């Protein structure tokens, strides 16, 4: 819970800038679009006492300039790897709304933000793996995979997701990880589907790697461009394109292994 500490002293410019950008950093890393980041950061800074706020949302950093009266400062904050965590994103937005309504101190808001990052629940790893497997099997049916290949797609995508989590824990580069996961999932799916007599081996290999398709960044890229932030949108689009190329290399290697590809 947010507590108003009843501090009489006004919040310093430094604290306003850094706390506002902490909201923005967490939202960016949770997969929010630039408009949301802009609204929350500028709104929080204003509610904490800033009279002028200018924010630049970049792909890897945030820069803010705030001012009160005749004084002003500019600060920059690095943004870490961008992922998707909708529950944290939602909680941070609710916290920003509570900061606005309860007039809590910056100190209390920072404590609450730290607690949210530490304690926002996540699903257990096995459940994520199974869910992703089911999603890819459903994707497979939408792409025209026959029923013989649905099981292989489900199991291979689940194994691929478990492998991806393992690589992320070891902090393997995301693009290299995409190739490795795509290779494992596509090869397993193709081998098993062929063994079961499926006539859609090629599509089954593609369906098993759809867990790697960066859907949220591609929609965010489009949103950012439509909402007047072409630089960030372009950066996201380039990241999506490079991920797709690395993913495809993994599928291609899998096809070569099974004799389905053309060297």
């Amino acid at each position, binding site marked *: 819970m947010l507590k108003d500490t009843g501090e009489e002293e006004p919040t310093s410019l430094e604290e306003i800038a850094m706390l506002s950008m902490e909201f923005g950093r967490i939202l960016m890393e949770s*997969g*929010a*679009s630039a408009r*949301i980041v802009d609204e929350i950061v500028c709104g929080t800074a204003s509610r904490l006492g800033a009279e002028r706020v200018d924010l630049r949302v970049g792909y890897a950093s945030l820069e803010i300039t705030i001012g009160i009266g005749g004084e002003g400062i500019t600060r920059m904050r690095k943004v870490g790897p961008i992922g*998707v*965590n*909708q*529950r*944290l*994103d*939602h909680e941070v*937005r609710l916290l920003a709304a509570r900061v606005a309504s309860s007039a809590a101190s910056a100190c209390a808001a920072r404590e609450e933000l730290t607690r949210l990052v530490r304690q926002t629940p*996540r*699903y257990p790893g096995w*459940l*994520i793996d199974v*869910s*992703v*497997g*089911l*999603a*890819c*099997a*459903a*994707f497979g*049916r*939408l*792409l025209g995979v026959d029923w013989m290949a649905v099981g292989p797609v489900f199991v291979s995508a689940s194994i691929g*997701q478990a492998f991806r989590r393992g690589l992320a824990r070891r902090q393997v580069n995301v693009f290299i990880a995409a190739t490795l996961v795509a290779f494992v999932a596509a090869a397993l799916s193709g081998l098993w589907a062929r063994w079961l007599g499926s006539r859609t081996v090629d*599509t089954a290999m*593609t*369906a098993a*790697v*759809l*867990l790697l*398709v960066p*859907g*949220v960044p*591609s*929609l965010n890229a*489009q*949103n950012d461009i*439509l*909402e007047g932030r072409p630089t960030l949108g372009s950066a996201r689009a380039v990241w999506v394109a490079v991920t*797709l*190329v690395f*993913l*495809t*290399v993994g*599928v*291609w290697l899998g*096809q070569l292994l099974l004799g389905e*590809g*053309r*060297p």
Partner: protein
Amino acid sequence: MIDTAQLLHHTACGGVAAIGFGVLFNIGPRALLWCGASGALALAVRTTGLQLGWSLEAASFSAALAVGSAVQILQERIGVSRNTLDVAGCIPMVPGGFAAKAILGLFALTASSPQAPDQTLLQSVGGALRVMFTIGAMGTGLAIPSLLLRVRRSR
């Protein structure tokens, strides 16, 4: 002519795919059901459009517009963030399979003696354009309801 069995099948697959990716994106348990509904709605509209002979881009645009509009109407009642429902609903329509096939086709062109290079190039470029236009159509379909609502609020 609408093939009801295929429509129901695609609707169910859209719902399952949206819920599956909802878990990956750490969407809360209560919101997961709404994500499933959002994905099912998207695939129902897209499949209907495709069965009526629309292009993939037009069907995807209509589906995204339907999801975006439904989310705008229901969002405050169900208490789930708009972005969450938009994204989860449209994820099953992201043409990742087409993108992978287009890039694989381009890889095939770099072989020392590619087979039917003209046809491969045409298929790859066609696939890549289809991916770009489909994602563009989805993003635009999702953005229109929220942009219109913002204009109304600002008046």
